């Protein structure tokens, strides 16, 4: 069946460290987005990346659609990076985004 899996579920980093978050998905996709959910619950768009590589400041993302995974890289982490990171996927066959269970990131000073 349809699956969107994220790993790791929880991550604690020292400020300044780098990290890689992973999203695996079960089928061909039209759309893949990475979001950061801040402590107030707002989903902040990070990347729209159904394929390829993008960079935005300290963040970058890569989606290898043929191998059904996406990676989010966070470099030189800051305490403001804390929160939950979600991968959301829209498959070729449907009209909805399927969210992974998220990675909860805590960056400590």
């Amino acid at each position, binding site marked *: 069946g349809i699956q969107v899996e994220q790993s790791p579920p929880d991550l604690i980093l020292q400020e300044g460290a780098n990290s890689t978050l992973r999203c695996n998905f079960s089928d061909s996709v*039209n*759309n893949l*987005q990475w*979001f950061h959910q801040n402590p*107030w*619950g*707002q*989903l902040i*768009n990070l990347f*729209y990346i*159904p394929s390829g590589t993008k960079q935005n400041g300290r963040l970058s993302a890569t989606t290898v659609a043929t191998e059904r995974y996406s990676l989010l890289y966070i470099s030189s982490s800051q305490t403001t990076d804390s929160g939950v990171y*979600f991968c*959301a996927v*829209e498959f070729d066959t*449907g*009209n*909805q*985004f*399927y*969210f*992974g*269970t*998220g990675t909860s990131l805590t960056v400590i000073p």
Partner: protein
Amino acid sequence: GAGVSQTPSNKVTEKGKYVELRCDPISGHTALYWYRQSLGQGPEFLIYFQGTGAADDSGLPNDRFFAVRPEGSVSTLKIQRTERGDSAVYLCASSFSGGTTEAFFGQGTRLTVV
């Protein structure tokens, strides 16, 4: 507007009451989604509109939930005979045309049924 706007931000209602949650999408966006997020979980799909029509309502949990988008812009999610299990954050998103276009989420409405 500049982003997706949801009102109210918070709603507390008594069990059995009727509630309406409003979503104002980004101007010009034809696709609109409703999601529900429970504590510690990822958002779960409720319904998708393309223009005025509900193209996919497969996520609505039962017939107490209904949503409309009469003019293809603002949408209202309606919940009848609310139950304590309906307590969650209700999120709305819009995108230019659905499918391969980027979606943007509102700040959500936190519904508490007491």
